[in-house]
């Protein structure tokens, strides 16, 4: 099936399936929100239910026990302890959704302390791959090939 005879057809089908899967996922994420985003769409139905936010960054902190989390261009409003929070911290938060103001009333929180270290390791791995990939692979007769 993966011989040169069927290469174009198999490649086209695989590419189509990949694009279709990506399109479906993107559509689903935009039109069938989950967790906190679903709660914002139907607040009354979600009032008091537990929601979880995973690895959201603290964008701003108010003195009155409220803080704002952000991931990409999405923001979540949270009510909870702010004394030990810093802007930029990445958090896991669980809490009860409150329909009246669209906030999560925090019941549990963990700061992902080593997140900056993870970003540094990702940068190191990218640098390694940038150097290694041309050393590992080459182009021969118009196709990718392993170097000897």
């Amino acid at each position, binding site marked *: 099936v993966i011989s*040169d005879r069927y290469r174009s057809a198999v490649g086209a089908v*695989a590419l189509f399936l990949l694009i279709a899967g990506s399109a479906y996922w993107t559509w689903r994420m935009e039109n069938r929100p989950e967790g906190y985003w679903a709660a914002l769409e139907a607040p009354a139905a979600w009032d008091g239910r537990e929601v979880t936010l995973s690895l959201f960054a603290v964008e701003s902190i108010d003195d009155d026990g409220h803080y704002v989390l952000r991931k990409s261009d999405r923001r979540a409003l949270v009510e909870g302890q702010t004394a030990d929070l810093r802007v930029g911290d990445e958090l896991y938060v669980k809490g009860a959704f409150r329909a009246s103001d669209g906030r999560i009333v925090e019941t549990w929180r963990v700061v992902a302390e080593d997140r900056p*270290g993870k970003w540094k390791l990702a940068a190191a791995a990218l640098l390694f791959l940038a150097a290694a990939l041309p050393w590992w692979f080459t182009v021969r007769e118009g196709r990718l*090939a392993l170097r000897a």
Partner: protein
Amino acid sequence: VPDPVTHLCTALLPMSLTGSRFTPVLALGAVLPDLCSRLPSTSLDILIRAGAPVPRWAPHLFTPMHMPYGALLGCLILALLFHERERAAILGWLVAGVALHFGADVLQDHHGEGYRLLFPFDLGKYELGWIGSEATVAWAPWLALVTAVAWGLRYFALQKAKSATN
């Protein structure tokens, strides 16, 4: 995900025992889901945060590449770019690398936010929760060092064998 250094080492360290010429393919497979999903989606997220005119849905486009569905299709497409005589082996090693990647990923605990391993057939989130999501950060530099030493020893052993033959 565990950090990419750990992912690379899960492929490179055991392969230092065999020295297989397909080691780079296994290593590429072990980071393929992150390279094709996390890298572009995080880059787009950074652009969105900076106010660039990027549609908010754009980062989602790459998410399926961090699921077995997209990663396996990616392996197939990548393998098709290689010469026919090596293609089956390349595909096998890429898939093995991707399996290593997801095997390491599901060990983690994201507090209820697992991996959608069965997309598009099931949207459930799965993970074992045995290690923290940042647990690998502490040991990754040591793992990288051990991997470098293992490959260094292999290189010097080969050089020694070559000079003995000559």
